[in-house]
């Protein structure tokens, strides 16, 4: 008997000898396809504007910075300003995301824009969040040709574009959005709540352990455009 059969056999045996009451295969299939919500905190529920305010407050509690923009045309300017404010060179690795294709980068000749996955030498990246969760100020990003995962982790400075229309109250709503996009999970879904940190040395909290030292969120008012 191989290890798989051995383990599953042991499990079956233990369950049979126990007082636990198993469900039928049908019940389990139904539970999986229903994927019902459990308790969902009320905290994130409300109007889009209230959710945006909560999202900002929660993200800033965990050391992210945020900025609200009126439209995509302000993105280039905001990125430049952000880089300058941290004395960073005017260059950014940008996700090859359709939304960012709408940004007219040529208006900012001092900004060096490259597209693709992140390399170790990249100091700043710009990616697009699939959703923002107001409950805890969490960004939901996922992998795909338009959004390489390395952008979220390698560069020291991570700038994320979040269309305000993509703000939801709870994580469960973000799962529904992803299920609507495709019936298979992407390789990676990242929930990001603030910049990287560690308290492993003397319980002193320090930002920028292995991932980004800074997380800057650009919330775009896209009500006009969507």
């Amino acid at each position, binding site marked *: 008997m191989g290890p798989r059969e051995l383990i599953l056999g042991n*499990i079956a045996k233990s369950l049979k000898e126990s007082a636990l009451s198993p469900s039928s295969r049908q019940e389990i299939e139904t539970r999986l396809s229903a*994927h019902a919500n459990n308790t969902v905190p009320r905290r994130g529920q409300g109007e889009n504007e209230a959710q945006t305010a909560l999202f900002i407050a929660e993200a800033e509690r965990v050391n992210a910075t945020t900025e609200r923009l009126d439209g995509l045309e302000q993105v280039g300017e905001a990125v430049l300003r952000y880089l300058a404010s941290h004395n960073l060179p005017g260059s950014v690795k940008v996700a090859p995301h359709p939304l960012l294709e709408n940004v007219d980068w040529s208006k900012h000749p001092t900004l060096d824009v490259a597209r693709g996955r992140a390399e170790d030498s990249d100091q700043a990246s710009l990616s697009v969040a699939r959703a923002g969760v107001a409950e805890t100020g969490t960004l939901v990003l996922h992998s795909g040709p338009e959004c390489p995962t390395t952008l979220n982790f390698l560069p020291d400075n991570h700038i994320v574009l979040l269309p305000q229309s993509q703000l939801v109250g709870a994580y469960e709503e973000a799962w529904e959005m992803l299920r609507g996009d495709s019936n298979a999970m992407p390789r990676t879904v990242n929930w990001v709540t603030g910049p990287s940190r560690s308290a492993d040395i003397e319980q002193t909290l320090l930002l920028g352990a292995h*991932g980004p030292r800074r997380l800057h969120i650009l919330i775009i008012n896209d009500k006009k455009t969507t």
Partner: protein
Amino acid sequence: MQSTSRHFNSNARKGIADAKLQAALSKLSHGFPVKRLAAMARLPEFEALRDDARDIKEHTLANLGTYLEIYEAKVLESGGHVHWATDAADACEIILGICRDVDAKTVTKGKSMISEEIAVNEYLENNGVQPIETDLGEYIIQLRHEPPSHIIAPAIHLSKEQVAETFRGEHRHLQTGRNLDEPRTLLEEARGELRRKFIAADVGITGANMVIAETGTSIIVTNEGNGDLTQTLPKTHIVIASIEKVVPTLEDATTILRVLARSATGQEMSVYNTFSTGPKRPEDLDGPENYHVVMLDNGRSKMLGGEFHDMLRCIRCSACLNHCPVYKAIGGHAYGWVYSGPMGAVLIPGLQGLAETHDLPGASTFCGKCEDVCPMRIPLPRMLRSWREKAYAARLGSTKARFGLAAWAFLARRPSFYRPIMAFGVGLLALIGRRGRFSTLPLAGGWTASRDLSAPEGTTFLSQWKRGKR
């Protein structure tokens, strides 16, 4: 890793005498628990979420075989592989095999308690593959060849000076006169060292906080982002999971994540919660080409449905350690193996044998705090007591204590003997204890070593009551 659990008492004494450790533990007592309370206060649904989390796991465990099969099918569907391992040796061999298949020289690792449990680092190293821990705390203790002293803060027992010394000894290519005085400079140095290793690694190994049957997904939870670099940059990603980690759906996993960080560090959510499903898709610009899951049993299938069943709900959050008076007095190394605190005292005897480890379940005041804070509502004291019953039946532990207890119980079961003998005893003690207390007393050395013993008033309550005193 060689277990030193049988030296629990001397380990504990060492911990109590270690001033640096004591400073760290006192900081811990005022850190995580306070933040946990604050996080709970902000979330009125917290108790309801705990109930949900417990129920999700209980449902899954009652159907464990089915959920594992569904999970496995989903992993395969997404292009990954699942390897089943009955024990630590199996798991190590499988992992080495995967590393050899891709000619791996170095392997980066995200933090994983299961990898500590199976001691895979040692095994890889002995077989020519260099494992590199990337969680800051794990990296430090790997350099020092120490086991973790806390399940989520593995280097909590070390001072920054000790870390600096370790770095100077290990990072010999760096300038000798460099400043390593502050946690910040130490972190920067580790970050710099590990960055190169992340990029050079051939394989990345992570643990899994949970795996999801619905989608074939594995989850890691970190604050540093090390786990993500570990599992994104190398060509091969290996996940070490154990059979009890499965949950049905994304929603179920979400519920458990809501209680995990709050119970652990008091964060509302850890910085990075990462859900991985299969290898990179052909059109993706990054991500691993191979995705392997090693599904470990190591005694868990036998725990199912038995007296230690509830322990299978454990999500390794560390709340029970952070609130345990014994853990906070002695630190994690006293437990002598990779787990510690109440959860360790329940798990270790099962994994290492009770004969050598009976002091772990023995050393509890049964104050109940662990069960009170456990997000999964695991009855830890009840299980510690189960171990004590087994130890008592097997006649493990000090014969003096057993004899004393047996003598006491013999009398207490026979009130007509008990009364006069006790009355005589307390009268005598009161006579010699006229100062009101004893600072030493024959046979009471365990007590009087660290505190005085108050003398009895002299006559028992029952005899006075019988004589009519009110």
